[in-house]
């Protein structure tokens, strides 16, 4: 076990734990986009930077293991400025279509911007326009303008499913998620990329424009009955005048059964 200090609090975690995981274990938040507990760490969104006493530069907490006696400041002036800057950079070309975005209301980019981001934009250039609402598979719609290139969806298809339909094409600010011409995202687990996407770039074809997340008043923990695997799920229900309406099924984390994922069967 490693002893360290995070924001003044004494913490003990197993060796090999990252700073980010240590903070999450404390029940606290470090904003992040590309990190996901079940995907390889790429450290590219740079959102989770924190200050470690004695280190000349900020470190990304997702890829920095804890060390004995380490002192971490998650909200130092430097870390706060860097975080705000990453959000500003991400928002430069992000469209302002949140009012009609299915992710709105449960969007990490939106929530982090509200909590940590700049209140106004200093960007006076024209935003880059890209392809919008393009169906890329039986369940998934892609909006390239909203994508922040965290690559979670790509890593999921590469490392978890092993089908590698999605990739990052081109480079720099021309980078865009894409598929081989004529191919579609139709592996058995494709719907998971909707849950993985931290913005509204990958949304559900079924659920599209059906509801605002805050209108899903009942989130019912359940177990999928379509096969014997018994994947743990959450059933999102909306109450309407004429009764209840089941709108969405999402995976419920259970490492002993389905981990973070469910299949596309219905």
């Amino acid at each position, binding site marked *: 076990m490693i002893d360290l200090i995070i924001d003044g609090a004494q913490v003990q975690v197993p060796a090999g734990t990252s700073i980010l995981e240590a903070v999450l274990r404390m029940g606290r938040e470090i904003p992040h986009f590309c990190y996901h507990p079940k995907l390889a760490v790429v450290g590219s969104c740079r959102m989770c930077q924190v200050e470690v006493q004695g280190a000349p530069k900020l470190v990304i907490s997702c890829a920095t293991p804890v060390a004995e006696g380490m002192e971490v400041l998650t909200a130092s002036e430097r870390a706060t400025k860097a975080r705000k800057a990453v959000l500003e950079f991400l928002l430069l070309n992000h469209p302002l279509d949140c009012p009609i975005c299915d992710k709105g209301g449960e969007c990490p980019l939106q929530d982090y911007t509200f909590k940590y981001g700049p209140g106004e934009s200093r960007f006076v250039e024209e935003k880059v326009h890209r392809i919008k609402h393009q169906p890329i598979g039986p369940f998934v719609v892609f909006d390239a303008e909203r994508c922040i290139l965290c690559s979670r969806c790509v890593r999921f298809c590469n490392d978890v499913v092993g*089908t590698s339909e*999605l*990739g990052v*094409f*081109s*480079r720099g600010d021309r980078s865009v998620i*894409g598929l*081989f011409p004529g*191919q579609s995202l139709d592996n058995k687990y494709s719907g998971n990329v909707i849950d993985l996407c931290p913005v509204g770039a990958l949304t559900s074809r079924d659920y599209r424009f059906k509801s605002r997340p805050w209108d899903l008043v009942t989130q019912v923990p359940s177990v999928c009955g379509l096969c014997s695997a018994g994947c743990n799920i959450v059933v999102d229900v909306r109450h309407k005048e004429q009764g209840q309406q089941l709108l969405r099924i999402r995976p419920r984390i259970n490492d002993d059964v389905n981990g973070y994922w469910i299949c596309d069967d219905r």
Partner: protein
Amino acid sequence: MTEETIHKILSRYPHRRSALLPLLHLCQQEAGYLTDEALRLLSKRLGLSPTQVVEVVTFYDMFHLKPGGQREIWVCHNLSCSLLGAEKVVRRFEEALGIGAGETTQDGLFRLKRVECLAACGIAPVVQVGAEYYGPVSPQDVAQFVERLRAQSAVSNQGSAFLPKADG
């Protein structure tokens, strides 16, 4: 691209994926660009998904997914060249070829490309065609330069090889 060539390239690396760039270069040399068929073939040979091949292809400036000119004229517009008149050189090329940078001539002979540093700044402004570097290229030289390239293409087109002739 013969089976023998593929084997020779694969034998250089302990992991077959490393052969991707060399094989892409070969495919492009043969067809002038990377056809969907070539991409599918490489993905099978190297154990990659077709998307993974396109990811790599689109990352690098030299690969093309669409047919372009038989020969590419690269005009460097980076700092050392720009200090010595590269923008004028680009413009003269556009005039002499009747196209904008990034475009291909109607007859399919030339694609004009603005490129970043070609690592030959000692002879700036630099133009590269095939393996050959030319410089310093002054704006006044460009019309004649294009004429010479056209004359060369007329000769090389009598043969069947696509390969750009590197002699300047």
